[in-house]
């Protein structure tokens, strides 16, 4: 969840968002280009190069294009519920979304600034192998198609995402992750998050 101060900060951008979206609707669809103002807005939370320095805000750099597009559509359609993202996603066109996805997919993912617990990471490595995470997310966890990059993702965000999948409060484009996370303990979720953040 967002703390109050950050929530107020985000709302301060609302008029700018509205203006940007107006511009977006006005101009011809350009799947290849994202307006600078919009990138700055996204970067406020997700990091200007798509690598988040903000608590529980996911890094977007190097995420697969289809994954990014899908998530923006899920936000827009209110199928992935997020108070933080809803105002930004609600009026995005398909072409806006494709352009954002293409932009962030090309950026270079950097390690999270969070400290990694080596013991937890070692345990997480073992768990990830047992849970076949690499089958879909690939053995180096860089993700593909609708399946996100996990390597170098923020620890606190991964914990939040996996917990939401376990609780059934978040879905991907199918219910696979809800099945995967059934009955996984808090401690195991932490271990997975520390391991995945540390994958180079």
């Amino acid at each position, binding site marked *: 969840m967002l703390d109050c101060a950050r929530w107020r900060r985000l709302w301060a951008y609302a008029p700018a968002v509205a203006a940007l979206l107006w511009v977006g609707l006005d101009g011809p669809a350009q799947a290849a280009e994202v307006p600078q103002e919009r990138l700055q807005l996204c970067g406020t939370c997700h990091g200007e190069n798509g690598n988040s320095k903000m608590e529980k805000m996911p890094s977007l750099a190097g995420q697969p294009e*289809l994954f990014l*597009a*899908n998530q923006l*559509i*899920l936000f827009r*359609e*209110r*199928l992935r519920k997020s108070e933080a993202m809803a105002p930004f996603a609600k009026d995005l066109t*398909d072409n806006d*979304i*494709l352009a954002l996805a293409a932009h962030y997919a090309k950026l270079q993912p950097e390690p999270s600034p969070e400290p990694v617990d080596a013991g937890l990471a070692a345990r997480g490595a073992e768990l990830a*192998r047992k*849970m*076949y995470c690499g*089958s*879909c997310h*690939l*053995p180096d966890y860089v993700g*593909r*198609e*609708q*399946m996100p990059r996990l390597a170098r993702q923020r620890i606190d965000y991964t914990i939040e995402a996996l917990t939401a999948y376990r609780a*059934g409060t978040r*879905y991907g*484009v*199918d*219910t*696979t992750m*809800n*099945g*995967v*996370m*059934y*009955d996984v303990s808090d401690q195991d979720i932490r271990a997975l998050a520390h391991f995945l953040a540390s994958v180079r």
Partner: protein
Amino acid sequence: MQSVRYSAAKLATGIGLGALLAATAAFELNAQQPAAPPPAWKQGMPSSMADSKLAPHAAPMTVTPVEKITVDKLKVPKGFKVEIWAHGMPGARMMALGDKGTLFIGTRTIGKVYAVSDKAGKREHKVVAEGLKQPNGIAFKNGSLYVITIDQALRFDGIEDKLDAPQPTDISQAINLPPSNHHNWKFAAVGPDNKLYMSIGVPCNICEIDTGKYGLIRRQNLDGSNIEIVARGVRNSIGFDWHPQTKELWFTDNGRDWAGDAGPEEELNRVAANAEGAFYGFPYCHANGIPDPDIKKPNPCAGVTMPAATLGPHAAALGMRFYTGSMFPADYKNAALIARRGSWNRTKKFGYDVVLAKINGAKATITPFMTGFLDTQTDAHWGRPVDVLQMPDGALLVSDEHNGAIYRVSYSGKVAATK
């Protein structure tokens, strides 16, 4: 005939719970086993496949521009023609036709229901419902559209006159859906007996199930009363129809994953008139009598109704309808057309087509009808057929989830008109 009722729902509503909560609570009260299944996706995956990179192929949720829909790659038999009939509807899957000619289309992930109207030869579409949890099950009867999602049942009365301001009635409590998510997007249709039929898939890839609750096709009156089980041991059926002459129910069923490239194959099944409630084998016996490698018991195929035909390994045989029109050649009459969305759990892709099932009593023979969604040389696909529907003029509509498009297949007999 077996009967089942989740009757605690009525008690629960007495204390003011919402419809969905009531249905869920009632189901859990009745459950003999823990409500949540073990990890659905892991079940049955052998350690020898730990390095496998097979994963489902997700369809885009953005609009495919019409000029990028390569309809000219589609191949149909001589004398048939394919054209794009409607487009711009991401995730288009199951189809139902209204009395006044509106085509309703369900989806999964994107959560929308579309309505397509024909305006002077041009198709326009509207979104009549959105924000739903996989509204795959849609049916039309007596002016009402029924939308069955994973956790809700909605009825839109007089919908064809209210496309701009649809007014759903939540009938979830009466319809009484089970709580599990996995394999619980529905296929729905109203039968010749005027009852609402739907599939309830199994909450796993392969697992022991309570056959009274999951892995079945059931029916109930349109007001939700009198739930009866029509077929059990059905893994996940996303397509059924009634034979035009015998009025017997025929259905497709998807085989399990992670048991190798060869199968077990998907099935085309028949529910004989005197055998309603029959058992179709899940989880012990698959396809033409293949024992499950993981869930074992003595004589696993004893008492199992065998398929009328197998439909190929991992092919994802989904929507099917019997052809009753007079546009197509005479040998199509009373044959079934079946959309095969195409495989993911197979090293070389299979399916991605529409096949014709010619029925001979309790058996069927399968031949290709519409191909070209898959390039077998490069193993790349560009489309995913999910459902078929016969129009009043006898033409066949085919939905393509990947491109959010509906194709129209017509027959003139003129070879020059074909690819």
